[in-house]
């Protein structure tokens, strides 16, 4: 069951790289939240009621509902529906994602980490790669935020790979981080409504 969920998570990563519509990005991020909750529920053996409530509110309420809701609102307000036209062609994306996936497998098997669940490790490495890939290749800051959210989800998965739950304080800090980044993006959207596509004011020339 867990492996199936992890593989599903991996598929969402591939889809996130290829799709051009922000609405789909947002929905996939929400779906990842649900997957992470299911994984936490099955994976963490000593899950107390308090922990369960916290993990549920973190993954289901925050990652699966609140963040996508805010992102959809920003999309509606700005009218930004698609990634920039001249971004990487889908074909190149597929090639780079495939390379990333193979690299993740190679790294995971080269390291031969006995204490790590290999499948989880591969997918979380792939998640880190995907997040970075989206941040680097996409110009719009909305995409950057999506990349950041993917990285946060990958780290969440990585903590499962190691078999350690993230300490609650770290969890709260990460949640604050995500919340503040969505909030800042909201301010961006409202203040610089006409052009939130790229960051070009500050430069050295």
């Amino acid at each position, binding site marked *: 069951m867990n492996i199936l969920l992890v593989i599903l998570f991996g598929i969402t990563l591939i889809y996130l790289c290829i799709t051009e519509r922000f609405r789909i990005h947002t929905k996939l991020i929400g779906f990842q939240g649900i997957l992470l909750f299911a994984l936490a529920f099955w994976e963490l053996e000593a899950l107390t009621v308090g922990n369960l409530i916290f993990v549920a509110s973190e993954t289901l309420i925050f990652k699966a509902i609140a963040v996508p809701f805010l992102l959809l609102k920003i999309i509606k307000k700005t009218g930004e529906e698609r990634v920039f036209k001249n971004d990487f062609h889908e074909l190149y994306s597929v090639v780079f994602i495939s390379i990333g996936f193979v690299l993740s497998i190679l790294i995971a098997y080269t390291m031969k980490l006995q204490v790590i669940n290999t499948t989880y490790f591969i997918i979380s490495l792939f998640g880190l790669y995907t997040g970075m890939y989206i941040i680097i290749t996409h110009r719009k800051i909305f995409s950057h935020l999506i990349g950041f959210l993917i990285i946060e989800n990958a*780290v969440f998965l990585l903590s499962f790979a*190691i078999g350690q739950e993230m300490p609650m304080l770290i969890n709260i800090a990460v949640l604050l981080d995500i919340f503040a980044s969505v909030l*800042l993006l909201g301010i961006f959207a409202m203040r610089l409504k006409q052009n939130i596509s790229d960051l070009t004011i500050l430069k050295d020339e």
Partner: protein
Amino acid sequence: MVLLGFFILSFLSGLLVFLCGFKHNQCKTLVKAITLIFAFLHLALVVYCWIRIDETELTYFIFDKLGVLLLSILSLLTFTTIYHGFIYLKDETPKRFAIYHAALIALIFSMSGAYLANGIIVTWIFVEATTLSVVALIYHDRTASSLEAAWKYFFVCSIGITLAYIGILFLGFTVSGSDILELSFSELSKMSLKAEPLYLKIAFIFIFVGYSTKMGLFPMHTVTIDAHSVSPPPISAFISTTLMNVGFIAIFRVYSMLSTTMQVGTNIHQFMNNLLILSGILSLLIASGYMLKAKHNKRMLAYSSLENMGIVAIALGVGGIAYYAAILHIVLHSLTKAGLFYQMGQSKKVLGTYMLDESGDYLRLYPAGAAALMLGIICIVAIPPSGLFISEFMLFKAMVANGEYFYLIATVLLLTFVIYALITRVLHILFSKPRGNENPYTETHKSNKVNPVQTVSQFLLFGMVIYICFSQPEFLKNTINSIIQNLPK
């Protein structure tokens, strides 16, 4: 319990200051009073920490010498930053005045926590808290560029802090079965002796790259440059000094912790040194390159911070007496750079611009400020009688002693470019006329004159740096020697 009291009072002060902005129209005096009381509270904490040196409090905090030394610098710069902040925000609305000071209190609180943290997770949490609080300060001017800088800073720091967390997860392998939150740096250090070097190397790479967003080192230096250039000058002073020190202490603690593994014959220490030197040299390279084409006075100083952090990283990597140089450099850089950024705020007031081409004739318009700027630049480029000359000289001596001539030549060459860039630009600001405008300074510039009393704090800071060149107090020497005593020779 004193530390807990400080944390509670910090929270209450910040909250009270924040609420003042919404509740009272004439709240500025109250905000000023609370902020000053908080600064004195912080000073009292520093005194308490020195009395209880090397003791642990609240399980997760320790008053070790490095933490308390940096906390003392923070306390000193808190007073000067608050003072210059009051001047900078003289005409600010009560609401924004209150938000600024609430965020400042939160930032000082977070930085204090990061300095005193006695565990890798607690450090991480406080470093993260500094990001959240400083963003409000970067965005203070509410301009498009400040919004962009705030976003970039927040975004890249968040990525950085996530990378650092991945490093901590890898480090978690070394303590399998134990709760990493419960472990102090010294306990982790003992456990890392038995750890697989590969995991330690991976952990260090992630932690180093992650925290380099805070220290402003290559490869994550870009965001601090933008943040410096648009923040209010007193905040630039903070970001460039005490906040960079947060990144330094986070990296230094992990570095010291893992250095002990050298005793069991692994090469992790050499690996960390190589990484530090590489990052330091690349930081110098980028700083010198961009300083040569800098058109914005504050950005130029921001690149100077990158250069100085590069020197600190190289010094750590070289080792030996360069360890001493690294700590001394961090201390003196904090004092010098803070003074320079305060001066930038004053020069903006007099000249009406941060742009290099539009600046000039500063000596005639504001002689006291010009003298401070000149003195500050002499200090920052490490020309005697600057105390930074001592730290850089020690670094070169260590390089010669270790036979690292390639690093020596590269460092000296790049520093030459930095000195050339800084000196020529500052001479232009001081003596030349603004380019393309022969007589730009009219009545508005006369009315914007700064009271020379406001420049006294800068002279005091530079005076301390110069004093160190001639005589290093025994207390400072002993403290630094004690900080580096456990590092491999």
